[in-house]
């Protein structure tokens, strides 16, 4: 650790901090603090907030249920095309969210690849809360896969070997040894996943649409309120920023060890 950074590094670093901080300062400074409580209590906002919490938590749960096994297979099983599958698992991170939304429509929409089957099962995803969950899961799952795979790779394989020599079957080894030791990485991945799902806009509005109470999550509500009701939009934005900050603070040991 050094106490006196060279000027050539300190100046850009300072600019970087300002670049990131100023928008937040602007937000806090313009916030209608007196009215924030009232804004946050309004029906639309509470509706959007409740919907966001429900969908983001559901999306995180789904991402974990699908993502952890996927990460396990990627980390422990060697098969042809593994690099391709890993790229696929991380694709949503680089895909523009609206593109993701369109792709979801083409897969799960009424006329999509699975449209017929879903309809036969009585399941409709676009324009529904479930659709919002699907959109959020799509964009946020890579965080779970990334963190879990990294955690698995750094796990000393001898613990699982020891468990096997003691007579535990593979599923038992996973449940009683791997998973508990994986918990920190998985927790970090799930937290990032949740934060991403909470902030998702493009894929949600494209795939699930925008209807208060059913699909209008907080980011959509902010966007809609921006022109007509800026105070409400700012209050909601502050709330989202606060949530993100809390997540980062809780994860600081994991993300920035030492």
């Amino acid at each position, binding site marked *: 650790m050094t106490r006196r950074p060279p000027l050539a590094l300190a100046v850009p670093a300072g600019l970087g901090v300002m670049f990131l901080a100023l928008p937040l300062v602007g937000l806090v400074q313009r916030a209608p603090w007196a009215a924030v409580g009232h804004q946050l209590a309004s029906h639309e906002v509470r509706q959007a907030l409740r919907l966001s919490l429900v969908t983001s938590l559901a999306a995180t749960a789904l991402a974990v249920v699908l993502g952890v096994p996927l990460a396990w297979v990627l980390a422990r099983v060697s098969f042809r095309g593994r690099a391709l599958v890993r790229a696929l698992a991380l694709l949503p991170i680089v895909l523009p969210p609206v593109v993701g939304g369109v792709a979801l429509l083409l897969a799960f929409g009424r006329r999509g690849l699975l449209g017929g089957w879903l309809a036969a099962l009585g399941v409709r995803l676009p324009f529904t809360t479930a659709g919002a969950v699907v959109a959020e899961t799509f964009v946020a799952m890579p965080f779970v896969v990334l963190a879990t795979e990294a955690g698995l790779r750094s796990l000393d394989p*001898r613990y699982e070997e020891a468990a096997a*020599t*003691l*007579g*535990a*079957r593979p599923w*038992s080894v996973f449940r009683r*040894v791997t998973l508990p*030791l994986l918990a920190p990485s998985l927790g970090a991945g799930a937290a990032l996943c949740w934060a991403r799902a909470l902030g998702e806009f493009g894929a949600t509005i494209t795939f699930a649409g925008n209807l208060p109470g059913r699909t209008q999550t907080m980011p959509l509500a902010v966007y809609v309120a921006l022109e007509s009701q800026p105070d409400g939009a700012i209050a909601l934005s502050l709330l989202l920023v606060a949530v993100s900050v809390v997540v980062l603070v809780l994860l600081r040991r994991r993300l920035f060890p030492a």
Partner: protein
Amino acid sequence: MTLVADVQTGAGGFSVDAAFAVGAGETVALVGPNGAGKTTLLRAVAGLSTLDDGRVVVGGRVVEDRRAGIRVPVEDRAIGFVFQDHALFPHLSLLDNVAFGLRARGVGRAEAAARARRRLDRVGLADRASDRPARLSGGEAQRVAVARAVAVEPTLLLLDEPFASLDVRARAEARHHLRDELSVFGGTAVVVTHDPVEAMTLASRLLVLEEGRVVQDGTPAAISERPRSAYVAELVGVNLFRGRAHGDHVILLSGAHLVIADAGHGDVLAVAHPRAVALHRHPPEGTPRNVWAGVADRVEHLGERVRVRVGGAVPLVAEVTAASARELRLADGGEVWASLKATEVTVFPV
């Protein structure tokens, strides 16, 4: 025979091809230089890696046979394994660690806990049953690791350099405990080690592995008498020479001559114990026919005995009393004459 193994396995350009057997209740030490394949062999027997070819039979049951397409997974082999660095589950208490195998086999929670507690008591750690492994010293952790492995009463116990990460003092203590544990265990054990003292004290039989092949298999005494390789000679602490015998003398690879009674003919190994080597300040007179000049390369004091490594035409190790060493005024790098009585050298065909 509790274990009959014929293992052929290769990983990363280095292969192991070894066959051996271990009888019921026997403890065999698997020794060899670094990279010989000891751990590879052990893991193959345990089922932690797959055989390329060969067969492993444990307790009369074929657990792996490549040609017959049989492969019993690790968890069903009734084998206990103790890893270097113990590999105790960091997220479980000592009690849960030792009880793990029992619970995995369907033993009820209460009973498993009771049995685990008894085991911990035997290793003197019952009062720390709810501690996590991180709070133990290396020696204590290793004891728990052994307790955990034997808790499920395996047919065969495999230990992979169990004391490698311990300091000298902890090692002696751990060795002592393991001896006790093994004698109570009553089962069959294979211990991988590169420490000769460990090998000699724990095992009734030594299996020497070099470059993936079994070089020697026998009791410590038999091996001491007839070491078959430089490593083994070093292991048991004798002088070993290779050469060609011509009746009453042997011409060593270095070109020097060794006069030996009844040397035989052909390629031979000649063994001489360090105590048979006498050291002199000046060229000796008398009967010794094997006399060489040399330089005292290294002088090691082991209590009342002194081991001197003599470099020269015929490099060898001599063992003399401390008093003699003082008389000779031996210091590192000093000139010295070594003699070896022909009758004190054993010769046997390669």
